[in-house]
């Protein structure tokens, strides 16, 4: 039974563990998704800052193409010689613009969207990209321009007519003197968002005045099928704007340092049904003057949603993955099947088989093949049951025997109560309720003819049981007990033989045998129980009954009283 109990215990543990896993794993997985998304976005932010810094350096480096161009240097030196009232226009300006356009085209992806050439006072000599005929106005107040005309290479970000630009500047040196500077500007638009998204593999959104102007989701890459299967979607501009306005721009780090903490936002799913889509957002203000205009970049990562069983089964990508994992599933199935077989075997060995054996044993006993169950054929609980059944049988037998003997006619029932006047006769001798072993002689040798009894010397023997009534009748009841008289000679009046047993010796021998057997059955000791003594006592009692009841014969019956063998005499008229 231990094995089956252990197996049931093991089964209960497995079921409990499975239930716990089913309940807790989704929570744990979702929490894990949140934490991992957060960690990745933190790395993204660091990477984004590095990308922006290196991109600024690349833009500064690209301006050297203008600064070393001979035409640019020549015309800039010429413009510096103009009087304050003169303006750099006409053919010279056209030639300078042509040179600038040519150089700019050769820059490829680093080409400027807007480019200024300023003299040593910060006055615009020429510009390309926007308002190309404009000139003569000053940019001196910009720290970027002031630094460049003094000899620095520098970067900055500007907001110009509401549009954000990332700027870079470099001085133009001609014949050993500073002649002015080249101011290079690139618009912060979708192209930059794409660069930043590609660099971080996260969604990048540019914003000005706190509103998203461009946002780009990362392009799918190898391994992203799993992300799609996990329900990764990207928030739209409205959701990002709401998150920025409600949570990011109010962040203390953002307002003070220009770099927000990671903020977890939610949005309605595209389908409008199901759980809210959660995504992390962190925002950086652009380094430079655009910072003051709440211009910056936000990077967004969506927390993968939990996958239901249905989604798991239906997702084709997951099916393909399942197919690749079939080997492992086979092993798991085999182990589960083996465990089930072990469980069934244990249940059969410790449950079903003992039960059927017990049933067969009980049925055999009912068919009289045995009176009791053999408890040694069973183990554990069934052995206890068999033992209890045996004891119940014993008790039932005892009750039946006791009842059967108590219903038989006795001398007292026939003659009336002993020692009362109602008693039909008073026997001459006292019939002890129990016959002492010492009073019964050994049985005669039935094979030889009976010999005439010779008087024998009195032998010491135990006294017969003495009752209060018998003590009255006995002459020496109060005094010391006299030696017992010698066995009496055969009765003068022979006992009438029964119909079946004419020979009294045969009858005495039969009664003796029955009495002897009953004592043995009852577990009483038969030591000292001899036939001679038994016969003498029996005969003496028989003669006494004859004399009292004047009956024709006396019938002796052996019975069990209170677990012991007893003898009853019944006069027969």
């Amino acid at each position, binding site marked *: 039974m231990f094995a089956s109990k252990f197996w049931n215990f093991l089964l209960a543990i497995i079921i409990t563990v499975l239930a716990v896993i089913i309940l807790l794993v989704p929570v744990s997985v979702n929490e894990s998704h949140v934490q991992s998304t957060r960690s990745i976005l933190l790395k993204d932010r660091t990477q984004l800052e590095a990308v922006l810094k290196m991109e600024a350096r690349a833009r500064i480096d690209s301006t050297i193409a203008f600064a070393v161009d001979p035409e640019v240097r020549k015309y800039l030196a010429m413009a510096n010689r103009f009087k304050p009232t003169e303006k750099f226009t006409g053919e010279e300006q056209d030639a300078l613009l042509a040179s600038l356009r040519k150089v700019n085209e050769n820059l490829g992806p680093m080409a400027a969207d807007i480019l200024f050439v300023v003299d040593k006072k910060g006055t615009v000599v020429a510009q390309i990209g926007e308002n190309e005929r404009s000139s003569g106005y000053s940019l001196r107040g910009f720290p970027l321009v002031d630094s460049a005309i003094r000899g620095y290479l520098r970067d900055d970000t500007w907001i*110009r007519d509401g549009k954000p630009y990332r700027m870079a500047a470099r001085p133009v040196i001609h014949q050993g003197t500073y002649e002015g500077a080249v101011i290079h500007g690139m618009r912060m638009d979708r192209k930059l968002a794409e660069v930043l998204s590609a660099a971080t593999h996260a969604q990048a959104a540019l914003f000005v005045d706190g509103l998203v102007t461009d946002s780009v989701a990362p392009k799918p890459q190898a391994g992203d099928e799993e992300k799609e299967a996990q329900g990764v979607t990207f928030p739209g501009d409205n959701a990002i704007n709401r998150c920025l306005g409600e949570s990011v721009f109010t962040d203390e780090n953002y307002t003070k340092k220009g770099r927000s903490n990671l903020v977890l936002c939610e949005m309605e799913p595209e389908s409008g049904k199901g759980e809210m889509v959660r995504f992390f957002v962190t925002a950086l203000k652009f380094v*430079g003057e655009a910072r003051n205009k709440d211009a910056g970049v936000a990077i967004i990562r969506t927390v993968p949603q939990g996958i239901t069983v249905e989604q798991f089964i239906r997702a084709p990508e997951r099916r393909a993955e399942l197919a690749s994992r079939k080997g492992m599933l086979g092993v798991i199935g085999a182990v589960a099947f083996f465990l089930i077989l072990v469980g069934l075997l244990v249940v059969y060995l410790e449950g079903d088989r003992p039960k059927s054996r017990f049933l067969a044993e009980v049925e055999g006993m009912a068919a009289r093949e045995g009176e009791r169950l053999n408890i040694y054929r069973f183990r554990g609980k069934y052995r206890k049951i068999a033992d209890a059944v045996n004891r119940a049988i014993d008790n039932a037998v005892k009750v039946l025997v006791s009842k059967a003997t108590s219903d038989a006619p006795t001398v007292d029932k026939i003659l009336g109560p002993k020692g009362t006047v109602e008693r039909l006769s008073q026997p001459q001798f006292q019939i002890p309720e129990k016959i002492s072993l010492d009073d019964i002689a050994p049985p005669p040798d039935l094979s030889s003819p009976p010999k005439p009894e010779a008087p024998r010397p009195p032998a010491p023997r135990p006294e017969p049981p003495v009752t209060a009534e018998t003590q009255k009748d006995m002459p020496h009841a109060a005094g010391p007990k006299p030696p017992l008289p010698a066995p009496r000679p055969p009765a003068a009046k022979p006992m009438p033989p029964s119909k079946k047993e004419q020979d009294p010796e045969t009858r005495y021998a039969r009664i003796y045998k029955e009495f002897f057997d009953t004592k043995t059955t009852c577990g009483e000791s038969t030591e000292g129980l001899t036939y001679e003594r038994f016969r003498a006592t029996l005969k003496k009692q028989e003669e006494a009954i004859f004399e009292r009841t004047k009956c024709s014969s006396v019938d002796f019956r052996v019975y069990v009283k209170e677990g012991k063998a007893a003898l009853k005499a019944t006069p027969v008229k």
Partner: protein
Amino acid sequence: MASGMKGKVKAGEEFQQYFNKQAKTGTEKLDFYWEVENGVLPVLPPVLEMEQRIAIALFRKDDPSSTGFVPVHPEIFGARVVPGVVVAPPKSTIKFHNADPFVHELYSDDLGKLFPPELQSSQQTRQVQFTNPGVYRVSCRTTPHLAGYVVIVEGVVAVKTPDAEGNFSFEEMDPGDYIVKIYFDGSVVGEKAVTVVDSDKEKDIAQVEIEMKPPALAADGPGKGDGKTSGKVETKAPEDVAKEPEDQGKDEKKGKGEK
């Protein structure tokens, strides 16, 4: 009969150090990824443009009134406020004209809602009345480096801007005792008492030379704006500004904004 005053402003050694340090760090935190020297020529030191950064204000010693004061109206040029310091008596209305070809968005935290950020296109003018004495910083959201200072102070009778070398002059002055104060970024960096005599001779023109010192070492200037100033801010189209009367001093005396 009237007389005049000529003078010169000089930057003392301590002031030059103060200016160089300020030019390096800036009044605003200038943030950038890179600022490196070109490696070919040594970089030039920052230049103190007196005509842009300095204002010279004249006060009567015995008369706290500002009778006859004509305010200077700055313009936004080259993403700067020119001149960078405007000194005027209380209840003065100051106009800010955008001479740049691009948009500005001027505002003043010291005035709060009275001068909030507002887009100001090229050639457009905004004006605001400064009621209470104080120093008011004017900034721009699109070009945050831009900073102009409006100093509202009692008793100022005239204001001049020096040339690049620091020379300045006042003409048509009433005789009497005057105090000349030098303002740099809203702070007093030097002052001197001058007596103007009633003479039309060249030799009687008062001569004064003032050495600028860092604000902490100079005479106490007017306090910071208390933010409780009541004023009136208006934006005008260039054509409207052009139609305004020449004599704005009359309206200024009334303490009302112009329309």
